[in-house]
């Protein structure tokens, strides 16, 4: 078969082509490497020159020359960034093209060049030697593998401290964990999946002790106001841009107000667009659900006759009433407890899911401790004369998950959940000590004797310090750690009803006779104090950098939550109140003696 171009000439041509393309491949490769290295050394978007100029600009903000210079450099920097990107991209295409040509040429040469198969001189005995050699080397590979693994294991040996339930609490973490952070749980990305279409639904978390039901994330909880004194029960609300000025009498900034059928001193709680509260008299006990947008009572659940309810009412004072405990919710169910020990769980439509009676409490004022949720557990503080205890029931079924008895006198304070960063602690305050429990198991973590009398205020927490106060006792600051210690104490301004609240390095104490004091949380030094001259029963709440204090006559005193005294506003409700405000949806919900108010901006 005659060929158009003789083989030899073709091969020569291909050889030349391959040399050229080989050269170009090397060239492009080198160019790409150089651009890579250049980029690595100086990121065009963050050159030291531009940083320097920016700093200068802060000093001389209106110098036009400086501005001009910065703009020019910025333009150049941007051009350089995009150009280098383009360079690398084009370079790689060119590299690929030249490599392709190179390969094609070489392969064609290989195809065209005639090859004659050659026969080696090979002895059949060689196979055994080969096998022997291979055997030896596989053996060597195995031994090498084991030794390398063991060496690696030895040198990278590190155990984790703080295996669960050990006492080793890292000090570093009790410091800067600030409760203003909102982000929810991080997960390992390889398998993390958002498992359904409405992604704001609750996520289930099996494998955690205490139950494997669904419960909301910390982020979801903090968007709402699901318990007494806020999401963690420590007086901190996470809403921003909160209203400061209103007038209940004239209706200014009052979105709606609704009369609540039965009285109760429990504070409203909020989840999404629903408000829940309870009311009770001698014979009836009811839970109400209101629409947060317009105040309509969507349903009221009658809980007067539940199984196990005692036939006689407990002895309560007028100041406490039968419904002093605030409700709580986990976004799936609402939980309510009354002074006779009746505990009920309702769903969001008012249907009763389960009820229980915890026994008539032996409490001479009336049971007041509010409820709080930890994951899917309902935590109940049940301190009575003679037998105090704290227990956790599964929210879904009401089954008791754990119960820990407390050697304390009867109290009216409420539990506070604190995430120290290292672990979550449940803090309870009653005579004679402040105690901390593991909310998942009920195990007592520590206790410190620092309080006496009839304890009404709950504790405050910020930055690794727990603050407890009671009238005729003292204000104590406890530093957390492996062994909590008393950091400082004071007894000039003591509260017997409103709970203190702390944020970062400030502690605010409001006394029931109407004095607001701002302490330095670390040293106990007083920054400022103000006499309101009005009695206060409601606990203060800190939201959006402001502290909201509602006095008994219904006037809200709002100060900056800062170490300098700065009053923001004083707004009146027009009705007396002893309840603690709830925040949500950019509104404040205040329960007066007769009505529930919704304040907007």
């Amino acid at each position, binding site marked *: 078969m005659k060929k158009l171009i003789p083989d030899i000439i073709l091969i020569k041509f291909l050889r030349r082509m391959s040399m050229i393309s080989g050269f170009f491949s090397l060239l492009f490769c080198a160019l790409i490497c150089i651009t890579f290295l250049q980029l690595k050394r100086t990121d065009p978007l963050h050159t030291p020159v531009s940083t320097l100029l920016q700093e200068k600009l802060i000093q001389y903000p209106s110098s036009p020359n400086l501005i001009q210079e910065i703009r020019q450099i910025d333009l150049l920097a941007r051009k350089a960034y995009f150009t280098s990107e383009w360079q690398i991209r084009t370079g790689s295409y060119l590299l690929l093209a030249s490599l392709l040509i190179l390969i094609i040429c070489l392969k064609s040469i290989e195809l065209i060049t005639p090859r004659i198969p050659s026969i080696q001189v090979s002895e059949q005995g060689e196979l*055994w030697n080969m096998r022997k050699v291979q*055997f030896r080397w*596989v053996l060597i590979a195995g031994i090498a593998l084991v030794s390398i693994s063991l060496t*690696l294991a030895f040198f990278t040996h590190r155990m984790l401290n*703080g295996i669960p339930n050990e006492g080793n609490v890292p*000090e570093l*973490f009790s410091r800067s964990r600030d409760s203003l952070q909102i982000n929810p749980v991080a997960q390992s990305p390889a398998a993390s999946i958002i498992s359904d279409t409405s992604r704001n639904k609750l996520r289930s978390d099996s494998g955690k*002790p205490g139950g494997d039901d669904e419960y909301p994330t910390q982020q979801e909880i903090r968007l709402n106001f699901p318990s007494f004194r806020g999401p963690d029960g420590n007086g901190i609300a996470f809403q921003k841009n909160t209203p400061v000025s209103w007038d209940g009498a004239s209706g200014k900034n009052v979105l709606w107000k609704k009369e609540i059928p039965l009285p109760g001193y429990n504070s409203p709680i909020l989840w999404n667009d629903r408000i829940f509260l309870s009311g009770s008299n001698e014979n009836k006990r009811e839970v109400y659900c209101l629409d947060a947008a317009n105040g309509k009572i969507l349903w009221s659940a009658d809980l007067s006759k539940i199984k196990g309810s005692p036939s006689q009412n407990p002895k309560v004072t007028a100041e406490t009433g039968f419904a002093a405990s605030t409700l709580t919710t986990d976004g799936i169910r609402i939980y309510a407890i009354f002074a006779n020990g009746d505990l009920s769980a309702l769903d969001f439509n008012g249907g009763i899911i389960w009820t229980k009676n915890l026994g008539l409490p032996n409490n001479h004022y009336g049971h007041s401790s509010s409820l709080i949720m930890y994951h899917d557990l309902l935590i109940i503080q049940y301190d009575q004369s003679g037998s105090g205890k704290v227990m956790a029931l599964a929210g879904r079924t009401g089954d008791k998950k754990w119960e820990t008895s407390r050697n304390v006198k009867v109290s009216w304070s409420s539990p506070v959940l604190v995430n120290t960063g290292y672990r*979550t602690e449940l803090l309870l305050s009653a005579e004679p000590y402040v105690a901390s429990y593991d909310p998942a198991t009920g195990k007592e973590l520590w206790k410190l004797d620092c309080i006496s009398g009839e304890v009404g205020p709950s504790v405050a927490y910020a930055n690794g310090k727990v603050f407890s106060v009671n009238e005729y006792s003292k204000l104590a600051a406890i530093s957390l750690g492996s062994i909590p210690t008393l950091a400082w104490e004071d007894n000039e301004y003591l509260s017997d009803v409103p709970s203190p609240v702390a944020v970062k390095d400030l502690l605010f104490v409001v006394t029931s006779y109407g004095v607001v004091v701002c302490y330095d949380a670390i040293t106990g030094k007083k920054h400022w104090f103000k006499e309101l001259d009005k009695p206060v029963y409601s606990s203060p709440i800190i939201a959006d*950098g402001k502290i909201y204090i509602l006095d008994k006559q219904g006037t809200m005193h709002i100060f900056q939550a800062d170490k300098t005294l700065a009053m923001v506003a004083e707004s009146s409700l027009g009705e007396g109140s002893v309840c603690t405000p709830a925040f949500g949806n950019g509104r404040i919900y205040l329960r007066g003696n007769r009505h529930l108010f919704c304040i907007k901006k």
Partner: protein
Amino acid sequence: MIFLLIIVFLPGVMAIQRFPKPEFESGYVVPVNQLPVQRGEILAWLDVAVLLIALSLVTYLVLKRRSRMGVFCISLFSIAYFGFYRQGCVCSIGAIQNVSMALFSGNYTVPLTVLAFFLTPLIFTLLFGRTFCAAVCPFGAFQDLIALKPLRMGAWLNAFLGIIPYLYLGLAILYAATATEFLICRYDPFVGIFRLNASFGMFLFVGLLMLTGVFIARPYCRFLCPYGVLLNWMSRFSWKHMNITPAECIQCRLCENACPYDAIEYPQVKKNPAGHRKQVNKMVVLILLLPIFIFGGVWTGGKIHRTLAGVNSRVRLAHILQPAHTTNNQPEIPEITAFRGSGITQQDLIREVTRIEHDFLIGSRIFGGFIGLVFGLTLIRLIITPYRTDYVPNKGTCFSCAKCMDYCPVVKD
């Protein structure tokens, strides 16, 4: 001042309504976001169809038509389609990880197309030999293209490096099963070529591998590919396998240098000079030692499980948070900032990590035992006397590329 404090202590904030939605008087309409989606699912099934067709075609070309040129053309097509067009993802090699993750870690469902990519080559190989490696796998096809001056490797090196694919397979399955990461994807050298985009380190690694590939044919396939381990097993016991000769072998020895991958096995009629009895003894000793090897592997696996677990991001986070590691002077790394904002406690993290490390203990022990088993079986294989009269391809390592067929003078009638 408070703003600065907030920005220091707030690592990332969810949407909080600070400024209300504006009401426009000028008739301005708020634009709607364009949210385009990925390529349609039907195209993934198209890939599966192309895979099936290509596999069938190559099998036919190798086993029936015995055409090297046909195989070469299909390999060019594979480089173009599975390589540059689909950019080598999702590939059959990587599908091992998806299958492992679906089998052992909760919460992940393997898409049917990925499962098809995993199974189809295995089934074809079980039936017809490694025709997948011949021309369908873009990695193999690419290496075939650059194998310009293949040299013979020493048998010792072949054996020594032969353990690496098993290690890679075991580690890849371990890490995928614990949902730690996809090791194969992370260290895949070819995907950088197909995407024309890689980190600098990868770029150098690929360059070196390709340079090696010019002189040692198919280095990735022989010494790295984890899927190749599975294909090796399937191919060894395959129903039909390609043969060098279309009919009877005439021992003309012309194919001795034909295979660039040293996959041709020579005839062996002489007996082992060491003697039959000695061989049997050695065999018995090795079989008795096999449980010891497995146990040794399990023990070693248990020893290194914490090191292996150290790759997991949650484990690494727990270690970073240990007091010895966090000092006040260093700028806070994003992992710590993110953790502080996540709301979970360190104790919860440690509980989670303890569970993960326990999973790794079990997995590493299985991995170690597996390597021990492979080790023992390899040694046994090297003792066995083969008896062959013909030149045949090694069923396990032959890639069915049909290069050797052109060397055989025998013609089928």
